[in-house]
Structure formats: C-alpha cells, structure tokens
C-alpha cells in the first residue's frame, strides 16, 4: 500500500491480506510530554516497571501497555482501587507479519467518568493470558469471541469455547491476518464437510453431556443410519431443528 499501487476491494481473497506494513512507532512520546491522566500516574506509582509504555492516540485516548503475565493483578487493582467498574470492550488486534497479538481492554469508570485502555502484547508462540471473567462478567462472551477469532487462550475462563463459529469449526481462527477471506479449506472441502455432518454435530458436547446426565440416550443410531441422516427420535426435546 505504501508504494501507491491500486488494490481492489476483494484482492487477496485466497491468499489473505498479507502482513500490515505499519512501522511500530519509533520513539513513543515520553510521559512528561503527554497530557496527564490521573490513573496512569497512580499506576506508575503503584506498579513502577509494571507500566511498560504509555501512549496517547486520537487526542485524548490513553493507552497503557502492561506485561501479559501481570494483567490480572493490574486490572484487578484498576477495578478495585481506581473504580473502573465497567468493562466497555475486550478485543484483540493482529497486525500480521509475525508480530505480537495485542489484547485490548477498554475500561470506563462510572463514578469517576474516566476512560483507560490497557493493552497486553502476546507473542504468537504463547497466546495465553489470564481470564478477567471473575473481575467483570462482561468479559465472558468477549473472551470467548477473542478465543474464537484469534485463538488466544484465557486461562481460568470457566466456559472457553467457540461462540460465533460452530464449535467443531476446523479451519482456524478467522480474524488472524494469515486467514484467507474464504477460509482455509477449498470450496469443495467445505461443501463435503457440510454434507457429511451428523445430527450430533449440531449440538455442542456440553449439551450432549447434559442429555447424557439426564438419561436421554445419545444418538448412537446415527452411525448405522449413515452420515447426514436426521434422527429425531433418539434425543427427546432437543432433536428438533437439526438437519
């Protein structure tokens, strides 16, 4: 993009967009040059080297980078001591090109009316971070989404499974930069997999487990009936809607 070549809207359909060409900011502005943010000052005082960087973007948005292994400690302190009680957003950014994936926490404090963005950088070979589920329940689905879309594992999340993609989706994590727009499998393979789904594939293992605990028989018969044969009689109650 930097060399000015034209790119059409759907270029890279099958290759993926390739790495982004942004340079990392060369010299981040020093804290003294930036407009003050009371929480960032308090964070520096309390954690010292735990605050890796402090940036200001778009005029008034403060970003604090913290080490991923201390995220629970810092975020818990922010929630309790600085009263950031509202988790506005939790997401991730993949810049591509083998660079670290950033996990982004966007915080808002209803009592003090302050915003703060906290980022943790996770190298691609260690995509694991502690879950903030027990700080903010709002993190529940957002962490599941980040896991689904980026493959970041949140340690301690009680129910970490795919949320937007089917639970048995085998093509990887769609929002990663190396994921092509049409998926990793060919159209033929995708069709073949869709057609060979069994009835039980429409239910998550969790539901099948509950059905088992409740004594409702698992759809074993399907194996005999061949692939794709809807069998609605074996699981009373949840047998509808399949197929």
């Amino acid at each position, binding site marked *: *993009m*930097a060399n*000015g070549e*034209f*790119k059409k*809207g*759907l*270029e*890279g359909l099958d290759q993926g*967009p390739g790495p*982004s*060409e*942004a340079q990392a900011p060369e010299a981040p502005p020093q804290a003294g040059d930036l407009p003050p943010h009371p929480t960032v000052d308090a964070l520096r005082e309390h954690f010292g080297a735990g605050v890796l960087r402090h940036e200001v*973007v*778009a*005029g008034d*948005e403060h970003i604090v980078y913290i080490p991923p292994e201390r995220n629970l400690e810092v975020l818990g302190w922010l929630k309790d001591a600085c009263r950031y*009680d*509202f*988790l*506005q*957003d939790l*997401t991730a*950014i*993949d*810049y591509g090109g083998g660079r670290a994936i950033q996990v*982004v926490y*966007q915080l808002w404090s*209803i009592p003090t*009316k302050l*915003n703060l*963005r906290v980022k943790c950088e996770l190298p691609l070979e260690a995509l694991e971070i502690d879950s903030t589920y027990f700080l*903010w*329940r*709002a993190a*529940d*689905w*957002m962490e599941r989404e980040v896991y689904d*879309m980026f493959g970041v594992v949140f340690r301690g999340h009680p129910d970490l499974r*795919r*949320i*937007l*993609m*089917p639970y048995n989706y085998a093509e990887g994590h*769609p*929002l990663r930069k190396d*994921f092509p*727009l049409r998926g990793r499998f060919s159209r033929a393979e995708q069709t073949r997999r869709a057609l060979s789904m069994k009835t039980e594939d429409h239910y*998550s293992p*969790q*539901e099948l487990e*509950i*059905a088992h605990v*409740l*004594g409702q028989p698992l759809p074993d018969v399907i194996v005999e009936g061949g692939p794709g044969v809807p069998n609605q009689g074996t*699981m*009373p*109650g*949840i047998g509808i*809607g399949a197929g």
Partner: protein
Amino acid sequence: MALRRVVYNVTRSPELASGGSLVHAPIVPVQGEAREVHEDVAGEHMLINIGPQHPATHGVLRLVLELDGETVVRCIPHIGYLHSSFEKLGEYRDWNQIVPLTDRMDYLAPLIYNCAYAMAVEKMMGIQVTERCKVVRVMCMELDRIFSHLLWLGTTAIDLGAFTVFLYTFQQRELIYDLHESLTGARITTSSTRIGGMMADLPAGWVEQLSKWMDGFLPVLDEVETLLTNNAIWVGRTQGVGVISAEDAVNFGLSGPNLRASGVDYDVRKDRPYYDYDQYDFVVPVGEHGDIYDRYMCRMEEMRQSIRILRQAIERLPGGPINIDDPRVILPTKTAAMNDMESMIHHFKVVMEGVRAPVGESWFSVESSKGELGMYVVSDGGAKPVRWRVRGPSFINIAALPHMIEGALLSDVIAVNASLDIVLGEIDR
C-alpha cells in the same frame, strides 16, 4: 422399576348435537381412573430447544433450556447463525466502503451505526465535521432511536399477547421508513454517512416532513401507553420479571435502557458528550427495579426525550455545507468532475485508492438505541483498516440472559429475551 399412582381428574367433554352444533356441557370434575406411571418420570429434568427459527427469539438465536417442570434450571444461548464476518470483510475494504456493512448489523437503527462508524474514523483522522453535519447526524441518530424503540415496543407487546400495539408502532415505523427513503434513497440499508460528512444534504422539505411526523407521533405514543402502562396483564407479566440488580448490571456490562432500568445513570450522551449533546435540553430516564416494566418505562420516556432533542435540532439546524472542505476525503462535485480534468483525476483517486487514514487508532462510542455502541478502528496508514471492531451493545446484553432467567419460568424466558432489545445481525456480526 418403581411405579407411582396418579389419579387424573378429567372434566366431562362437550357433546355434539345430532346436527353437529355444540351442546353446552356443565363442567363437573369427575373422578378419573387411576393410572400408574414410572417413578423416575416425576421430577425429571427436561432439555428443550428454542430457536433458531422461532419468531419469539427475535432473530436466529437458539436457546437450550434445562427445565425442572416449568422452572428454568439452566440456559445455554447459542449465537452465530447469522455470522457474516463483517469485521474480517472490513479489513478488505477501504474506509468508506465499510459504511454499508455497518447498517447491515443493526437494521433496526441503521443511521446510528452509520454515524458511529464515521465518527470513530473521523476522530482517528482528526477531522472536525461541519456544524450542519453535526446537527444532521444528531437528527439521524435520535430519529433512529425512536425507530428502534418502536420495533422493540411492538414486538415485545406481541410476545406478551398484545397484538394491537404492534399495529400502532409499525404504522409509525412506516412513516420513519419514508423519512429514511427521502433522506438516503433506501429504507433499511441507509449507508448515509461518509468520512467527513454525509452522502447528501437534507432534501428539500425533509425537515417539514419530520416535524409533521413528530406532531402526529406523540398522540399515538400516548395512545399506546394507555394500552399498556396500566394494563393488568402487561403489568403482571413484566413487573418483577427478569430483575437484575445495579451492581450485576454494571458487572455484566449492560448498557442503554437495560442498564438504566436498574438505576445506573450512565448515558454516553451525558457522560462523554459528543456533537454538543451537552447543549441540548433533555433528561435521561432512570428506573429503579431493573425489571421488564422499568425497561419499558425507560424506553417510552426516551422516545419522548428524543422528540425533544429533534425539535431543538430543527431549531438550531445551521446553514452552510454538509461536508468538510478537505480534498483528502471528500469527492469534488459531480459537475466539476465532469468538466474539469483536475477534479476528475481527484475523483478517480479518492474512489479508486480510497481515503487514507494516518497511523493510529481510536475507540469511540455513542449511545445507540440498544446501549453503548463502540467502534474501534486501527489504521496502519493505508486505505484499509488493520482492525475494525464493533462493541455491539446487543452482544453484551444478551450474554446476561442466562443470569436473568435461571430460576424463572419458561414463559418468562420469552418476555426477558424480548425486553433486552437484541438484534441478531449485530450479535453475530
């Protein structure tokens, strides 16, 4: 296998006369015959499935419920049936081409999504839109707040058995569709904003059309309120149902009327005012019980407040251009592009290369009809975003559904789900 004796009391069934007409039968309980059923049937939990194709789930939401009799023991929501990977698609489109993706997320309030997206990109690029554009966008957003609340009102009432309200609200929505159509040319997928302004200025007579609609709308809203607010069935089905406390609501990240019904006074328009919302005279209704009835009352009052804001916006609508004067983002006029070589090249380059944003990022949120709508845009200096993320209010609100309905009755599941005002296009993205 243990057997339990159960005695069924059966009433006498109506009899038919020889001509086929119904003979009045007195309802007299008679002692039925005793039957024996298996002991383990009594008290057994049952797994049932609601959706994804069910009108009361307001889209393709699927709920798996574990029931003990009629009481919900566990609820597992499943989403993703409408997943269109808008965020991934956005990485292949330039900044202006993303606008049509935004209104397909929340097709119940498309203009709010158009505006929120454009505002986030403009904030990242450091663009200040013109005064006229600000007021026009405020009008768009308040109009669509009413538009979305009307759909909520109609469908929630119909879920609880009040059909008439649906007809009233959809009649009004048709009139707003007409306003959309004359403003943008489309009734649902409006795609009305551009980076740095709007697709077009207000058409002649639009403001008059809007005022005329507002004059007719308020009496209808009052009439709808007489149908519901003191209606015994409505009150019985909504008061004390789906209650969430203020602490839980904040912890679950609820926003919009769902949060304010629990008594938390958080409205982005008041707490982080954008587009001079601090200069408009309006109040934010706050509930206290956190149940469906309070959510209903909050939304009814919000519609009235939106009308107040709309009237003030019409009052202060300034003249002048709607788009900023910045050749980086705004196209030359069609006349210039057709007559003048420089303008034509300029037009070609803006369209083909797209608008370029500097390196940076911005997380910006507005108060949409359903809650806090956040748009997170990250740029690497190119014509396309590195990441475009939508903090959808419905996505976060629906995540609190199991918390609200576990322990409630099956019939309340539909009511609570309706009261959250979800739109699956935005949940699934």
